């Protein structure tokens, strides 16, 4: 071995490293690369990966939607012929904060074991994700269509609608290409986040995304071994019942909600994305407080004037667009909310699921 030999080794390694990075940057982006240990080596997850304390929840938050979808039970092979596939998209209430997978809305609806008159088994899949943004929901809906749903149920709440909330979700911020595509295809009134630079597309620039993808596979072992995919604290701070005497919602103070500032265009886009697959919209339950200043606000999120106006607007919009709609805003009593004005206890979810089940059954029979 000589210094010249070592120098050549180092230079060649550097050259290969640079070349690899350049090739990586010019190849099509991460979107579409679907390798995963789930389904093959590991059982699929019941809901999308999300977690801020990976070592306790055996789960993590990442932004690679393809990797996230590929980790789900939903992605396990082809859809069975005897399955009627229903996917639920929404926020943390649908995902199931503080709830075990079987306690979530999808879990409880699935446990009922609905069967259609034609013999197909109705299976519910949880595609909720814990941030409030309809743009994020559109991204998930778009990804879900690859898994051949027969029905999509989109659970929404007012907090997901304001325009300024749309790109706040890290999932939207870190998927500029997808968002730009939606903006272009569906003429959405959004200023999409900037596209990743050349440097960000290199292997070095993508190191976080690649490491997250790898960690998602590794935490899958603990998911498989324990069935845990969330950190369940022994105690939590309950959602506020006594409220501030503040009638504002975001920057608005009433008396009506500015329709143009709400992202109702998302529903039109959602309908287009779903294509022939029926899309049902549900206004999810909220905490209706009876505490201090409850005559001003329903809960921490919503002043009464804004929420009442939103319900009216949403119903009108759904009729206008032609989307079946269920307003379930007050079907769950105050006591069944946990650490947020939209998070339900298992019993609260059960009550909501019963309402949903009856509505769905009617809809399915009517549309068979």
């Amino acid at each position, binding site marked *: *071995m000589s*210094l010249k030999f*070592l120098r050549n080794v180092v230079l060649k390694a550097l050259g290969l490293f640079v070349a690899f990075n350049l090739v990586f940057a010019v190849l099509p982006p991460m979107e579409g690369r679907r390798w995963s240990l789930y389904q093959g080596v590991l059982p699929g997850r019941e809901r999308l990966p999300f977690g801020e304390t990976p*070592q306790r929840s055996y789960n993590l938050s990442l932004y690679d939607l393809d990797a996230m979808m590929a980790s789900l039970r939903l992605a396990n092979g082809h859809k069975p012929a005897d399955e009627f596939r229903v996917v639920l998209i929404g926020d943390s209430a649908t995902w199931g904060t503080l709830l075990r997978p079987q306690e979530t809305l999808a879990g409880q609806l699935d446990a009922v074991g609905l069967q259609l008159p034609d013999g197909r088994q109705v299976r519910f899949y949880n595609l909720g994700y814990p941030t409030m943004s309809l743009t994020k929901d559109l991204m998930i809906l778009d990804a879900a269509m690859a898994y051949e749903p027969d029905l999509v149920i989109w659970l929404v709440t007012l907090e997901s609608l304001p325009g300024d909330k749309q790109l706040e979700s890290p999932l939207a911020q870190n998927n500029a290409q997808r968002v730009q595509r939606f903006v272009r295809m569906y003429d959405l009134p959004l200023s999409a986040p900037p596209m990743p630079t050349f440097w960000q597309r290199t292997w070095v620039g993508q190191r976080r995304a690649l490491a997250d993808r*790898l960690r998602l596979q*590794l935490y899958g*072992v603990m998911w498989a071994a*324990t069935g845990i995919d969330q950190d369940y604290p022994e105690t939590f701070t309950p959602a506020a019942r006594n409220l501030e005497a503040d009638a504002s919602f975001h920057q608005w103070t009433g008396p009506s909600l500015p329709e143009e500032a709400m992202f109702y265009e998302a529903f039109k886009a959602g309908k287009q994305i779903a294509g022939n697959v029926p899309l049902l919209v549900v206004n999810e339950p909220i905490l209706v407080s009876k505490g201090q200043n409850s005559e001003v606000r329903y809960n921490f999120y919503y002043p009464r004037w804004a929420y009442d106006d939103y319900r009216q607007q949403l119903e009108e919009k759904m009729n206008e667009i032609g989307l079946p709609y269920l307003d379930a805003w007050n079907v769950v009593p105050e006591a069944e909310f946990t650490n947020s004005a939209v998070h339900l206890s298992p019993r609260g979810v059960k009550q909501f699921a019963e309402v949903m089940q009856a509505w769905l059954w009617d809809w399915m029979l009517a549309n068979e």
Partner: protein
Amino acid sequence: MTLMHILVFGAVALVARLFLREIGRGWLLLAGSVLAMYWMQPAMPLREMDFWLPTVTLALTVFSWVLITPETVRQERKQWVTGGVLAALVLGVALTRYLGATGVLTATRPPQTGAVLMGLALVVGIAWLLGRFTRPAGRVLTVAVVTLIGLFVVLKWPLLTVWFSAGLRWLSGQAVERATALDVRWLGFSYVAFRLIHTLRDRQNGRLPTVSLQEYINYVLFFPAFSAGPIDRLERFLKDLRALLGDVAEDLGMGGKRLVVGLFKKFVIADSLALFALGPQNVGQVTGTGWQWVLVYAYALQIFFDFSGYTDIAIGLGRWLGIRLPENFNAPYLKPNLTQFWNNWHMTLTQWFRAYFFNPLTRSLRTARKPLPATVVILLTQVGTMVLIGLWHGIGWNFVLWGLWHGLGLFVQNRWTEWMRPRMAWLEARPRIAAGGRVLATVLTFHYVALGWVWFALPTPTDSLTVLLRLVGG
């Protein structure tokens, strides 16, 4: 050692090797090791202890050198120069307090200069008293060894560590009632203590070469091996330190290879396995026997790749600096019996215990007035050594049981080997059966070691028993 530490150490070693070569090598190692010791020491809830604990490590090293070195050598001018350089380095680290509100080299802001000067004066005073009133004789050296072991026990026994922390809190004016065993994180003390005890014991036995203060500091605090070994022997280390540097390309090439392999083992394989390895948190959560085995295997592999990765990194960095540190691991999981496993797992630690505990104990039991039967001697020495190695990791029942597990395993394997000895000729005449037997023995040995980790990885024997029962479907 974090990745950042390793990168900086690598850069320093590379520059030193390529551009400085032998020029000021001893001084560079000394300065590098002392500064690295302060830099690597993590922050603690105890005020300014991230400065004082490395300073105490340095002081203990100086005191040990004073005790093992004849007066004529101690009085040489170069030793005073080294002492002065050490004091200047400590003072230099302390003066970084004026460079910012937070620590620059240390984790937090160093103490006030006056306190540091007083501390240095105290160290010089103790070193002078040790040199003035003691001779490198058996009794003083024994006291020094016992003191180091005592300090070790305090750090490894949670009950005593809490008291120690409370004492330090009282000294620094912090709330004594908030003391916990986790307060004291004295980086590198275990390995430093091993090296110091080795030199003190070898001085007692008259086997230690004379060594300058600079060389001694470089041996004890050598930064690539400071926090995780290997535990080199002084005379071997000196051979490399005093020799001219070898072929630079050979050293850089071989060292670089070890460094890259070590980084991959530690930061890719071990850290990945750590995400699902057996641990106190997941012990009660796992459902299913199969997955329980996966977690145990993951732990067995994680601990190997973690530790051997660090060893590779240390050996690689050492090689760049012209020091060939001893090997610590040699495919231990591929050995066909427990004795061979222990001859190839953390080899420098087992050699240390063999030299300073196992062999002396065996000699003492065999030469006792009423010698015990050989079988009993083997049982006592093997179980005793392994329990002691267990206790080195921490004083608790889990480590005692882990030591017992291996001690008894070694004893049973020893008896089995004795039983097999007359039958070996028959076996060797049948190579296929012998080869099959070796594979089976390797698999059995690996599983015995892997199951032993269940005692090691979990904090209570109850947890370990639960896991062991679950592994067999219980």
